[in-house]
């Protein structure tokens, strides 16, 4: 997996989180405590997507970005001498 792919994955996760937040997922995230949102099944689904995207953005994305930076650094250090 290239550093570029890792960055795309990390940013993609953050974009999904931002999109779910923009759609109002934050107001339905009480589904995590078993509370039925006023918006019903759609709200429940949106709340779950919002929560999963948040956890991915906070837990996984930094690891992907770290890996991308490390791979990029390695490429830089091992570049052919001209």
């Amino acid at each position, binding site marked *: *997996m*290239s550093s570029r792919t*890792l960055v795309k994955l990390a940013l993609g996760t953050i974009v999904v989180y931002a999109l779910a937040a923009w759609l109002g997922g*934050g*107001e339905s*995230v*009480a*589904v*995590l*405590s*078993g*509370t*039925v949102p*006023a918006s019903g099944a759609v709200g429940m689904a949106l709340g779950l997507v919002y*929560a999963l995207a*948040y*956890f991915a953005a*906070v*837990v996984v994305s*930094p*690891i*992907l970005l*770290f*890996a991308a930076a*490390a*791979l990029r650094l*390695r490429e830089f250090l091992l570049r052919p001498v001209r």
Partner: protein
Amino acid sequence: MSARRLSLLVMLVGACVWLPSLHLLFSPKGDEGAALLERQRARIEDRGAETATHDRLRRTNPEWDLMRRTFLTLALLNEALAEPTRRDANLRLVDGILDELLADDRAGGPYTFLLPYAHARRFVFEDRSLFVDGEIALLLAARQLVAPRPDLDAELASRVTTIERLMTASPSVSGESYPDEAWTFCNTTALAALRLSDAHSGTHHDALAATWLAYAKGHLVDPANGLLVSSYTYDGRVLDGPEGSSIFMVAHNLLLWDEDFAKDQFVRAKRELAFDVLGFALAHEWPRASSARADVDSGPIVPFLEASAGASGMAVLGAAAFHDDALQEGLWRSLYFAGFPERKDGALRFRASNELGDAVLTYARSFGPLWELGKGRGREARR
């Protein structure tokens, strides 16, 4: 080394650095009690918001509507005791909650705050729920203990008499919360109400409490782990074993009657149910050996970790009541990480929670003054 293996190795190194450090970003600030109460105070004062809160909670579980009022009232009264400048304002709010609660109970009857299955059969002893009478009595007694309101004395006396009648008539020394279902949570809450009522009025329910405790220690302790079970039939046949959403509240209630047994229950509950993942503390709903499944009390169970929102929330109360700072810190870190906190104008709420969850957390942060009064040291302090 192939590019694929190399990227996996680098990600593994990244995970080893990032995951153990993550909890450092989610430290509690120490002002959560006041900030949570600020948010809920604003909602109580806004009639529309308050009605919406009742509807929202009742849509999932009518019990939550009563329990939220209970924990919120206890938190307001604790703050009234701890901060004299807040006393009058908080008592006004408490009176509003109490008057509305008594009106709702009178208008709707004993089933107002019960799940629909309560209608499936008849109560064995009497058409009353100790869940409802116990929590209302607790609020009345707490209100009277902080600052007596003469017009509430008759209502408190009536609820206390009801609790005595429901518990003493039962072969398990326990009132039913639902038909032929007695709950340890509700019976110990009723006992807490009696203790606060005693501290207010000078009466004594030591014999009833001692009888219940003797029965519970003899019949309601799970031999596998020494924890009190959650529910049993009217005549004492165990229905549900120990549960995280129940036992931490039970231990907190028992502090008023039997401190050693209460501490023993908390220590066992912590050992069986609480756990730590990378600096974040959580709680299981059931002991490890149990095969029980998610229900309305546990809330959804987090896959892989088997953590329960209900148990973790009540563990915050247990940790506060038993001054377990390390567990409290870990649980609050989890709340900041996975509870989706929202701070606005000095007010705090957790969006992954609901108004009941926030009320439990508020009460946990304020815990102390009322229970100290209840243990008998309060009558002097009140003078």
